[in-house]
């Protein structure tokens, strides 16, 4: 069985699971964990989009 994700969906799946682990392990309070996890996910996603546009600009 083989799974083929697109580059963007692979980055989003990665961001989701990494953010969950970061949120749980890097904060004490449950509310803080959720906030930090969500923040990490947004930064991962925005970073991916920014890197994509940066590469597009470099190419053009």
């Amino acid at each position, binding site marked *: 069985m*083989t*799974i083929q994700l*697109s580059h963007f969906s*692979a980055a989003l799946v990665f961001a989701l*699971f990494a953010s969950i682990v970061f949120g*749980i*392990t890097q904060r*004490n*309070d449950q509310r803080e964990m959720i906030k930090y996890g969500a923040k990490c996910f947004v930064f991962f996603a925005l970073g991916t989009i920014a890197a994509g546009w940066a590469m597009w600009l470099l190419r053009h």
Partner: protein
Amino acid sequence: MAKEETNVAGSRSAKSAAPPQPLTAMSVLVLLLGWLVPGAGHLAQRRWGRGLLLMVSVVALFVLGVLMQGKVYAFNTGDILDILGFVGDLGAGGLYIVTRAYGYGRGAIDLATADYGTKYIIVAGLLNIISAVDAHDIALGKKK
């Protein structure tokens, strides 16, 4: 300024300012258990929600990485990146042992997304190490 920094660190950091606790057998056990089975260190301490979320996250990343035809590194003394890849993969503990035992994770150079799979597997191992250390900190009373 110093007071402000202390407040920020106190409210945000997962590591509270609790006095250092002596190493206990339980703290070492949950560290090893957490490494061997992702999330088990938390589950052993009745942190059910956290344990399950950590388990699902690490296992999902690792399995998706293998299904994306990512490479699972064997022990090697070659290229530095290969050595680091092995160290990262080894962090997944039981998942790594089972995957190697069954011969999965050979890697496919003809698939563009296989490289993502390789990175998924390495990061799953590294995240599992963070989880195991977190379980160790909970057992030591450094974290709630």
